[in-house]
């Protein structure tokens, strides 16, 4: 058993299999109309993934997510790094972040749609808002923990304020920043799905509810599996990237499993 679990990737695969078996058994046991067995729902996945319209819909969703996430990276990381190095910046932004923290970002969707219409702009903005906080928070923590001596040496060598931020603080804080990026990526997916479920207008979240209304329960479950796989894929993919970039740092564990 110990030997088996030491093969990388095997335990999670077994876990997936176990979850599917439990699902199948539950569905057969209860025989509910609203809970089709895994063996019925999973074959729908290739159908969905070969359907041009739903593929375009999903592609659009992912594109908006990428834009919202990218914009948040560009704005949030510098703010976080700056907060970590300047008392005043921290004092300026911290209370604001505390107030914004418990606001459900995806819930802003109806209000933002009122202002910006039902197009891409509102959906992207909501994703942007959803991921900004963890990105700022982790960049702040990373930048705050940078060793003073590194900065002193850098100033002694004649580096100015901005150069120090770019060439010393950023690399030193990178492991922690990447933790924020990973949390943010999963959060971006959550915000995207949630806001689309609320807006019921386009995208991945909408496909789920359209099939729900049509009574196509197999498709509903297949979509849930697809969304779940996306989450796992982002998580694993980012972990690989993180090891590449900051393999030198200890693997930090995070419990900031967020929610939009």
């Amino acid at each position, binding site marked *: *058993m110990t030997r088996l*679990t030491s093969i990388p990737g095997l*335990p*999670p695969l*077994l*876990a997936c299999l*176990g*979850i599917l078996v439990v699902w199948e058994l539950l569905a057969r046991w209860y025989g*509910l109309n*609203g*809970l089709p067995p895994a063996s019925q729902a999973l074959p729908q996945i290739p159908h969905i993934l070969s359907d041009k319209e739903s593929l375009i819909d999903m592609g659009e969703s992912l594109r908006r997510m990428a834009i919202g996430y990218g914009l948040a990276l560009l704005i949030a990381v510098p703010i976080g790094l700056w907060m970590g190095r300047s*008392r*005043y910046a921290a*004092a*300026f*932004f*911290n*209370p*604001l972040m*505390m*107030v914004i*923290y*418990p*606001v*459900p970002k*995806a*819930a802003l969707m*109806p*209000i933002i749609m*009122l*202002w910006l219409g039902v197009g891409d702009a509102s959906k992207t903005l909501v994703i942007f808002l959803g991921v900004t906080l963890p990105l700022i928070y982790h960049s702040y923590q990373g930048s705050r923990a940078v060793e003073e001596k590194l900065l002193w040496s850098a100033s002694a060598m004649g580096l100015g304020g901005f150069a120090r931020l770019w060439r010393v603080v950023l690399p030193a804080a990178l492991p922690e920043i990447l933790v924020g990026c990973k949390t943010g990526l*999963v959060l971006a*997916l*959550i915000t995207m*799905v*949630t806001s689309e*479920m*609320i807006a019921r207008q386009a995208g991945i979240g909408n496909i*789920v*509810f359209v099939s*729900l209304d049509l009574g196509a*329960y197999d498709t*509903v*479950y297949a*979509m*849930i599996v697809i*969304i*779940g796989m*996306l*989450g*796992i894929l*982002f*998580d694993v993919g980012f972990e690989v990237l993180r090891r590449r970039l900051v393999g030198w740092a200890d693997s930090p*564990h995070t*419990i*900031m*499993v*967020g*929610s*939009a």
Partner: protein
Amino acid sequence: MNAVRQWSERLIGAVPIIGLLALWQAIAMSGLAPPALLPTPGVVFARFFQQLGSPAFLDHAAVTLYRLFAGFMIAVVMGVTLGIAAVGSRAFAAIVTPVVRVLAPVPKIALYPALTLTLGYDDASKIALVIADAMFPILLATYQGASAVEPKLAWSARAAGVSPVRTLFTVVLPAAMPSVLTGARIGLIISCIVVFLAEMITSTDGLGHLLMRAARNFQTVDMFVPLIAISMLGLMLNALFNLVRRRLLRGFPEEK
């Protein structure tokens, strides 16, 4: 000197919050946005306080609170038990760890349609979603905290004749309390947000439903009110939790 610095930092912190409110007021008054799209903050907050006295509004808030706490409590019990059990038993950890690793990054909100199909459109599906979302941070924090507990503590208890299970709950769990409470605080805010979102997606009552009802009727002011209510609730629960935390953690070394 220190007090002066503290006050000046607080003043600086108030600037962006007041600034945002002022910007909101300025845009609303400038006529750039018609009141139907952007009511002034004064109107919104007046409506908020008026609604706090309205029994119908409070009923909706009570429904939301009930779902929030039912889900959160179950999530705490499940998360702490599973986390502690995973530290206590290697065989159990071999099962739980991969399952958690697979399920933690899955957007739980995607399960919501399945939950409504199996548990119905009432409280049960929303509570289940809150559990699914809030449990993972609590479980992970408990597991991390409990595995970092000084093993000598547990050994001493075992040497004194305490059973392994009792050792977990009377020695390891209390020693892991700071980490458990951090996880629980994150879980609490997540519960607060998730219950509201679930109510927005499908519901006939609760604060989230009020927002969607107002949105369908284009009552902009009433769209802001539930949003402010749930955010205030989150802030209050957070503050309350910190008080409880300070109480429970008396004697622990201060963090950060």
